């Protein structure tokens, strides 16, 4: 099983950062790679089990299911239902933890998945260094970091 771990520090209190990222349907509002998103079946985006259907700027379409969301612990866990990436059993978690020493937020974005062995390095780099870090970089531009 392949693993991705990417983390960063953002110069804002965790409640401000959480307000930006907690909406499971809100990726286009903060992630530069995402063009548009909708929740299937007209469900609220914080209903556990809801499915987001979104499109990347490169045209790829991905469907992901919300598995867990906690306003108390500030994390969001989801799985991929459908994507052109060639991954199986993909589960990812975005987690925010306060840095008490200076009103910052420690952000972790992790994923686990199965894939063809020869594609593992490429996928880990693309997901971690590309998608996750790309999201972090956008948040750092908004909040500083």
């Amino acid at each position, binding site marked *: 099983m392949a693993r991705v*771990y*990417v*983390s*960063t*520090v953002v110069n804002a209190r965790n409640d401000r950062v959480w307000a930006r990222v907690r909406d499971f349907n809100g990726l286009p509002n903060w992630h530069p790679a995402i063009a548009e998103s909708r929740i299937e079946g007209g469900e609220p985006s914080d209903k556990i089990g809801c499915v987001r259907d979104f499109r990347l700027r490169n045209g790829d379409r991905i469907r992901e299911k919300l598995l867990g969301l906690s306003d108390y612990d500030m994390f969001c866990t989801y799985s991929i239902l459908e994507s052109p990436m060639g991954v199986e059993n993909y589960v990812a978690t975005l987690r925010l*933890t*306060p*840095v*008490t*020493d*200076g009103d*910052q937020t*420690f952000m*972790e974005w992790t994923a686990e998945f199965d894939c063809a062995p020869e594609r593992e390095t490429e996928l880990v780099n693309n997901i*971690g260094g590309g998608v996750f*870090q790309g999201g*972090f970089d956008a948040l750092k531009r908004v909040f500083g970091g």
Partner: protein
Amino acid sequence: MPHIVKSTILDAPTDAAWSVLRDFNGHDRWHPAVATSTIERAQSSDKIGCVRRFKLKDGSELREQLLALSDLEQSFSYCLLDTPVPMFNYVAHVRLLPVTDGDRTFWHWESRFTTRPEDKDRITHMVAEDIYQAGFEAIRRHLKEAA
């Protein structure tokens, strides 16, 4: 039950911070509040269950027991056995997580304990500031001097 959570970012990789923090008997070399420390019964400081007996600069003596230590997670937990301060059931957890964006360290230090209501604020402030926050600053200096 008071719950203390303090965290900071160190401008050093987790391995550098962990090499200092993992020694349960090493706090007298970096923490400004600790004068001397020994492990009882000549046990190794990474043996789970070992007890550190240490003196603070103010002369008070404390005993703490190592409950868990993980080089994989870069974390450890310990509890207080004896202290002149009226705090009970004190269990603390330290863990280091890598900040991959810049090869830094997120250091999380938290604890829970019970005490008399009239001592709660004073003791909470003492642990959070004089022990945890002062410890953060001390490790920052320690790592800078070592570099």
